[in-house]
């Protein structure tokens, strides 16, 4: 029993694929958003099995959804930098829980 408890304590907490949503000012054009998706997809922590190769752009609400691999962690700075190099201004980021709840990530 102690051995099982010890093994459990030493094992990393179970993880699941986490998704994030970023509010991006100015992203109102399907063609122009191609660059943002292109830059974000290059990030190592993106899960390309979800959305459209890991990214979904919602120009109606100026949101960019990103999927993060189970074995990786989102790097907010890199993500924001990639969006800026795509020509737009990221403002806020929220994590999306499996139940659909959003929680803002603080700097």
């Amino acid at each position, binding site marked *: 029993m102690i051995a099982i408890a010890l093994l459990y304590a030493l094992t990393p907490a179970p993880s699941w694929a986490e998704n994030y949503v970023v509010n991006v000012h100015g992203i109102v*054009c399907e*063609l122009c958003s*191609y660059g943002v998706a292109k830059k974000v997809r290059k990030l190592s922590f993106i899960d390309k099995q979800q959305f459209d190769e890991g990214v979904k752009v919602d120009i109606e609400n100026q949101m960019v959804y990103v999927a993060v691999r189970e074995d990786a962690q989102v790097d907010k700075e890199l993500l924001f930098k990639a969006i800026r190099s795509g*020509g737009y201004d990221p403002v806020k980021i929220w994590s999306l829980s499996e139940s659909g709840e959003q929680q803002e990530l603080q700097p």
Partner: protein
Amino acid sequence: MKYSLTMILCAVSGSAIARQPIMDMAPRWNDGYGVQTRVTHTNSQTTTWLEGVYTFKPSVRMTLKVPSVAGEIGDSIFAVPLKKYTNYKDFTSNWSVTPSVRIPTGKGDDWDGGLSFSYSSETKSIYQLYDLYALGDDIGLDINVGRVFPSGKGSSWFALWDVSAFDSNSGQRILTGPVAVYFKRNLVLRAEYKLPAYDDDSAWSGDFVGFNIGVVY
């Protein structure tokens, strides 16, 4: 890839008009590039343009436009659009200053300098572009304004109205007409038709028809 593209475009290089900015909206990302072919029919003459754009960063691009009429290369136009973008919540706009040079890759020997000032903005439903330019002895103003119809699935239709005013040594004219633009991911299609609303230009006759197909990366 980006340098080989530039080299190819340079290698391929009429005095036909080519003032419309290349894909004004894109590529607006670092190290973005694109090519497009534009076919225009004016004055009983068909001109095929091979156009390329490279974006170093959103504020600095370079473009090259190479015309061909009946298989003969005309004078090319090289330009460096310098842009200042501003992004608001659901609105984006940019001011541009674009120095350009007309290169005598055709039969002529003269180099011409040019400069344009432009402004464009876009919401998810409205697009507008104003471009005041001078190139050699020519001065012009292009205006594109209209509605955008995004599908929400990576494609959009644009229904625009174009007004092009032009002043040169041969006279003045104003052309106007509809423009349809379609985007699908990184593919751009554009079709336009313009009639002369005012024509006091001895070198001009009839209407204008143009088709573009381009892709950006």
